[in-house]
């Protein structure tokens, strides 16, 4: 596989940042977009634009069909059983909120328990916190160890007869931990507890098969998977969608509207009220095609190679500490440099055209657990090369030099 050829499909790498070639190591935050995706969005607006749904005209029929094609592509990509189980939202956060709200409304009562983990992104904690406030539910945190692995036995102990749902990440956006979701789903299902999986980081970087995982809900976003912003996906098992109430009310999600009574459309439309990010959803199909053109296994292999190289190179720099050492790690590397705050690292690296992230990465629970306020994070995408890592490491050495730590 020729990475330079793949990289050349991303127009952004033609530009310079502060006079230097862009080294983009912030794909966990959001990925860059290949030309095919950018062109598709442009082309749809130029030649095909129409809203989807009700209109009879040719453009509307085409847009409706294309929208549906993305739904089928997503279904196949994550191996769902039915295309109706794929619901589009504006982002993964909204997808999780959709479930926390509707599931909460239907099934959560005062004193009921929700289990999440210390690895969660705020988007898989805050929505459940709303239920803690509105329904007086209890949130329990499955602990992690120093390596950033979830302690499954401890999670098991948290389960009681009051546990109503377990919400876990598939891949940590700080430590890169690949969570044994299937094992957790098995444990939960033995007690008839549904599981929601936050798949934001996993879908673009590891194989995801929701039928094999057997999870009840799976949420992810398009923009981290080489797609446009404005597209989130919620996979939900049919049996839940049949039972859960609607989320946002408005046009397109209704069946019949009377002064005294409203009936709702069937899913997925029931959960897609109002005008959707039509162009973006249609464009997202191109992102899936892009990933498929590389092949998920090739992509995984490449990112593993770059990640391992980065980990080796980091070890050569004494003052760098990598945060977490999970059993199964993807291309997300959080690190600290003794004596330099992550924000200073990010500013100095940016001068070299290196884009990383610094902060708590929306994981304050994790950082608190590790006694950290902030970390620097380099995250790998399909376009990253060993040269990128070399430039990163030279930049880190420059930080150490500026701060006179040697």
């Amino acid at each position: 596989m020729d990475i330079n050829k793949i990289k050349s499909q991303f127009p952004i790498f033609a530009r310079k940042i502060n006079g230097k070639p862009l080294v983009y190591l912030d794909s966990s935050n959001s990925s860059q977009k290949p030309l095919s995706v950018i062109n598709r969005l442009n082309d749809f607006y130029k030649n095909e634009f129409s809203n989807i749904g009700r209109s009879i005209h040719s453009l509307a029929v085409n847009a409706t069909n294309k929208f549906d094609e993305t739904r089928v592509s997503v279904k196949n990509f994550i191996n769902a059983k039915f295309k109706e189980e794929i619901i589009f939202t504006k982002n993964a956060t909204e997808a999780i909120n959709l479930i926390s709200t509707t599931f909460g409304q239907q099934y959560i009562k005062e004193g009921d328990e929700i289990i999440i983990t210390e690895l969660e992104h705020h988007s898989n904690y805050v929505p459940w916190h709303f239920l803690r406030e509105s329904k007086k539910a209890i949130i329990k945190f499955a602990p992690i160890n120093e390596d950033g692995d979830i302690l499954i036995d401890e999670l098991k102990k948290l389960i009681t007869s009051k546990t109503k749902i377990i919400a876990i990440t598939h891949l940590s956006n700080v430590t890169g931990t690949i969570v044994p979701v299937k094992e957790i789903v098995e444990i939960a299902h033995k007690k008839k507890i549904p599981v929601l999986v936050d798949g934001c980081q996993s879908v673009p970087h590891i194989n995801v098969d929701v039928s094999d995982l057997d999870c009840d809900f799976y949420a992810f976003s398009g923009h981290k998977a080489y797609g446009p912003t404005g597209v989130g996906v919620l996979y939900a098992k049919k049996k839940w969608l049949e039972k859960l109430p609607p989320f946002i009310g408005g046009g397109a999600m209704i069946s019949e509207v009377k002064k005294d009574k409203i009936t709702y459309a069937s899913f997925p439309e029931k959960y897609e009220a109002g005008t959707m990010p039509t162009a973006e959803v249609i464009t997202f199909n191109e992102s899936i095609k892009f990933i498929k053109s590389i092949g998920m296994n090739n992509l995984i292999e490449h990112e593993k190679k770059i990640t391992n190289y980065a980990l080796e190179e980091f070890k050569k720099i004494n003052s760098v500490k990598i945060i977490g050492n999970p059993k199964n790690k993807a291309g997300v590397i959080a690190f600290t440099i003794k004596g330099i705050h992550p924000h200073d690292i990010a500013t100095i690296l940016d001068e070299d055209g290196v884009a990383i992230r610094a902060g708590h990465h929306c994981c304050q629970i994790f950082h608190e657990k590790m006694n950290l306020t902030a970390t620097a994070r380099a995250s790998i995408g399909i376009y990253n090369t060993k040269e990128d890592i070399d430039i990163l490491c030279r930049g880190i050495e420059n930080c150490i030099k500026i701060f006179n730590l040697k």
Partner: protein
Amino acid sequence: MDLKQLYQDIILEHGKSPRNKGKCKGYNHEAKGYNPLCGDKVHLYLKLDNNKKIESLSFEGEGCAISLASVSIMTELIKGKFFDEAKAIMNAFLNMIKNNLEIKSNHLDDDEKTKLMSLSGVKQFPMRVKCATLSWHTLISALDQKKDEVNTEEIN
């Protein structure tokens, strides 16, 4: 943009060994500041005497080199000043950072002005302005005895 302007020796030195850290004795004013973007926190302690003179000023907290240097330099410069002088210095500082204005305060000698101006490099790094201004906004809050924590995302 110039990294050398941002990370001047004086900034790095104050960042590494910030002055006036801890709770000062007999403080009668305090305020907290928070930057939700990075999670950095600052807690200021201030002792104002009967003549409205700032007898002592100290801080607790963690942060980047810029925010630590800023709070460290601030405590040095503000200590010993009167309430109104402190506010004038703060305005001069914010004007330097936000409006690119030269420091023209009668309340600071040349050495003090040079110290304060060492923080002016931050102007070129918009994402870092809040690191430099957090402690100063917190100082206002302490002087005015406001109850709420200063939040960098809620400052105009």
